[in-house]
């Protein structure tokens, strides 16, 4: 579904990604972990070109989206993204946040979009907040709405950029639960996170990135029980 070839990204003289090769198949839950500053978030943000790569290519569903001629806006509609800081639109209600993109971009009739939004809100247990503004929600509720907002576009892949890092500890669980349910339904997911438990339990593949390179890539079981790379062994010894 996504094929990344020799992806590079530098900010000025600072090389953040130094040639990443990665293939993500449909239905996979790829979890990316690594120390801060390792480039894991940059990699994720390159996937939908929020960061423009300085080298290499990204093939998404058969199209090279790093090609200047590719219409990135169309591809982004198929890639939902969830941010660390939620980034809900504060001037719209929860329902408006969710229906904005489907009604404006896919021209779905308003009633239909609202019905769909309610269905999704019901799933994440937030139907009672449909008319609320984001500022009245807790962090965990905001993030669940943000996930629903991305899902409303019926994306083929969901990108999660440290979705629980800005949450109070007691709210982490509710967001992870939504993500687990999503994985069970077969959604293709790429998740940058520090939640090792989530990586172990839900991930189909775990990737360790440091200094802009993939240092290890394995099934969760092998990855955590039998790490090969010394840098990863050191990292795991500190976080587990």
């Amino acid at each position: 579904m996504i094929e990344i070839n020799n992806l590079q990204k530098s900010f000025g003289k600072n090389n953040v990604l130094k040639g990443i090769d990665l293939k993500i198949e449909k239905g996979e839950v790829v979890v990316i972990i690594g120390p801060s500053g390792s480039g894991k978030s940059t990699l994720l943000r390159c996937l939908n070109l929020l960061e423009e790569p300085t080298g290499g290519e990204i093939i998404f569903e058969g199209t090279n989206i790093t090609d200047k001629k590719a219409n990135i806006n169309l591809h982004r509609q198929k890639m939902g993204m969830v941010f660390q800081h939620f980034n809900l639109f504060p001037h719209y209600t929860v329902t408006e946040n969710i229906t904005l993109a489907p009604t404006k971009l896919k021209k779905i009739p308003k009633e239909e979009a609202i019905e769909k939004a309610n269905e999704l809100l019901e799933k994440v247990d937030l139907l009672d907040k449909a008319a609320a503004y984001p500022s009245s929600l807790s962090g965990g509720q905001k993030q669940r709405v943000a996930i629903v907002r991305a899902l409303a576009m019926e994306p083929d892949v969901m990108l999660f950029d440290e979705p629980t890092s800005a949450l109070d500890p007691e709210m982490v669980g509710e967001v992870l639960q939504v993500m687990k349910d999503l994985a069970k339904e077969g959604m293709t997911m790429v998740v940058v996170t520090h939640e090792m438990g989530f990586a172990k339990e839900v991930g189909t593949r775990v990737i360790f990135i440091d200094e802009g390179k993939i240092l290890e890539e394995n099934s969760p079981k092998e990855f955590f029980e039998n790490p090969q790379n010394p840098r990863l062994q050191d990292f795991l010894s500190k976080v587990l």
Partner: protein
Amino acid sequence: MNINFLDFLGPMKDAIYLNFIKNDRYMYIVDGLINTLEITAVSVIIGVIIGIICAVIKVAGKRVYICKLLGYVVDLYTTIFRGVPVMVQYLIAFIGIMPLLGIRSSFVTAIFVFGINSGAYISENIRAGIEAVDHGQEEAGRSLGFTYGKTMFLIILPQAIKNILPALGNEFIALLKETSIAGYFAVIDLTKGARIIQSQTYDGIVPYFTIAGIYLVLVVILTQLLNIFERRLKKSDRN
């Protein structure tokens, strides 16, 4: 019979009668007030439209090449219109440009001058407002598949305008007072109305204090309206 009504004013009643009642002179004030409000309102609308266009061009200049070029034009515009006194701009428009364009309406000249002038100030306000919106908002919009333009108009601008509402209100209030120079260019605004009365009654006190009071009341009302409007918009920020 008007005298009875004015009795409670005591010694002031003769002056009031002379300046406002006799020959229906209060109509100069009423007509002037209507003109002042019309010029201010239309000018602010023009200013906001110009301001939004210029601000968006400036902000988009960082990523759209054509906007970068247009940005230099916007810079020139804001520098000139904020740097030259509005009285001088008015003279140039009234005596130079408008006759050349064949426009004789003093009302059109007034909204032309004040609209373009306030546009220069408002554009800087709006630009600051856009830049104050969290960058994550743009990213969220783009990640959903919105173009940069749609992200700007659906997501960023509404928040930016809310941010700068106090500044916009102040611009409106400043403009209301600034329009008093229109009276020197063939517009019968509130100030000119008072001058006409004074020229007929030779009273330099009552007409001018009256319009001073009217300007003051208008400004206070506008300030209050602005506060109410702001509170309404803030509803989305409340818990």
